[in-house]
């Protein structure tokens, strides 16, 4: 026997083994559906959580920077603003000071304990509320980075505070923080992989279910990792594209 035929045998063994494993993990009993359905759940949770996160983040950021900028207003308004600002600060401190998994478990087992509720809804709420705290700080930084002159120009034309925010400050902020929001989306996509702790069948859980059925870890988990990676690469590309388009709209 020469060395080539040994290698050839190994290679053909390898392919045979690979084929068997592939069949066992993905084809048999239509196990691939765990991954496809899981990916669907992961994307759904991420997408809606990001939307909640952006809405909540902008809201908190606007409250906080309004509080910081507050010039002339009635004392009642000032009091309301102080209360809102306090609530926002508590929210930011608690959310950013505890692990997202703990938040998820608390929301599922404590807050929604007594109601039968769709698990993906719980995950959306938990990750959305979590993301909002990080988005809020991104957006606040974005608002602060806008030249004070923009604000003054708006006010000097007769726009009130809210109108100046809405027509002048927020659109510019949005453009500035878009890259950071894109990152937040990517981070969240990966963070949702702990949703299996509340038995939500997301992508990670899907791979894990296959593993527990086939007793082979390598292939389902590698597949899961590859799918996450692919998603992240695609999202990064989209993000770059969007940024470039936004930038060229001003050129």
């Amino acid at each position, binding site marked *: 026997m020469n060395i080539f035929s040994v290698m050839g045998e190994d290679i053909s063994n390898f392919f045979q083994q690979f084929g068997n494993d592939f069949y066992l993990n993905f084809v048999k009993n239509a196990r691939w559906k765990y991954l496809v359905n899981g990916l669907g759940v992961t994307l759904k949770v991420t997408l809606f959580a990001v939307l909640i996160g952006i809405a909540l983040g902008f809201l908190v950021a606007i409250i906080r920077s309004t509080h910081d900028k507050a*010039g*002339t207003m*009635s004392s009642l308004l000032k009091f309301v603003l102080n209360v809102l600002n306090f609530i926002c600060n508590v929210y930011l401190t608690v959310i950013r000071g505890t692990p997202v998994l703990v938040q998820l478990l608390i929301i599922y087992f404590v807050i929604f304990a007594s109601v039968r509720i769709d698990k993906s809804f719980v995950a959306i709420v938990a990750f959305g509320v979590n993301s909002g705290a990080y988005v809020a700080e991104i957006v606040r930084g974005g608002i602060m980075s806008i*030249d004070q*002159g*923009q604000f*003054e*120009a*708006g*006010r*000097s*034309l*007769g*726009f*009130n505070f809210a*109108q100046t925010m809405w*027509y*002048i400050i927020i*659109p*510019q902020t949005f*453009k500035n923080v878009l890259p950071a929001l894109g990152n937040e989306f990517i981070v969240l996509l990966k963070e949702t992989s702990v949703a299996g702790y509340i038995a939500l069948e997301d992508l990670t859980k899907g791979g894990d279910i296959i593993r527990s059925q086939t007793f082979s870890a390598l292939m389902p988990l590698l597949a899961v990792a590859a799918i996450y990676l692919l998603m992240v690469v695609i999202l990064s590309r989209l993000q770059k594209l969007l940024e470039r388009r936004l930038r060229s*709209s*001003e*050129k």
Partner: protein
Amino acid sequence: MKNKEPLKSFNPDTDPLISVKNLQKNFKGLHALNGVSLDIYKGDVIFVVGPSGSGKSTFLRCLNRLEEPSGGEVYFEGVEITDRNVDINKHRQKMGMVFQQFNLFPHMTVLKNMTQAPVKLQHIPKADAEAEAMKLLERVGLADRANSYPNQLSGGQKQRIAIVRALCMKPDVMLFDEPTSALDPEMVGEVLQVMRGLAEEKMTMVVVTHEMAFAREVASKIVFMAEGQILESGTPDEFFNHPKTDRLKQFLDKIL
């Protein structure tokens, strides 16, 4: 908030358009304005000059309460706008302001920059506002830039747009804070030309500037400020040729 009505009927031909009474402004212990009083009548072109840090910008910005006065009053068209209960946004619509740094909105085209406020605040139909904006753009020779974004424009062009943006609100007075100080020298002329046109049309203007030759040419009255006070005011002739205070004489020696 409701609009406070003038106590007596305001007559724009005999009453001051803006009346400033004993205006004070403190910045954490620093007295930027120490009792400034001034009457500005319709058609006046008031130039405010003085050394750096004398309170010129602070004074101008107190007129539309971009800076909140610490004391004193500002009356605009007979209404005390320093009254906390007044809807200042309403009055600001009638007081155009032009900044040293232009402050155009970078995310809007030139046309949008100009029409946003009239459309949203005065509920003028978009088409009408755009027609009006185009007319103004033609007047300042920038009609071809209507669809440009601010960062495609030169400094001089930006400032001319900033002026016509304020004019779109049909203001009763225009406030300028060093409109040419951020410009390259070769662009100063085109902005002054626009301001000269406004003065000729009898637009009421308050201008903070270091352009002394321009002040001499178009001012109806020059106000000299130092240490948060008006030390002297008069016609360009009185100001340049017959200064009364030593402070002004020193100032003129230094700059002329």
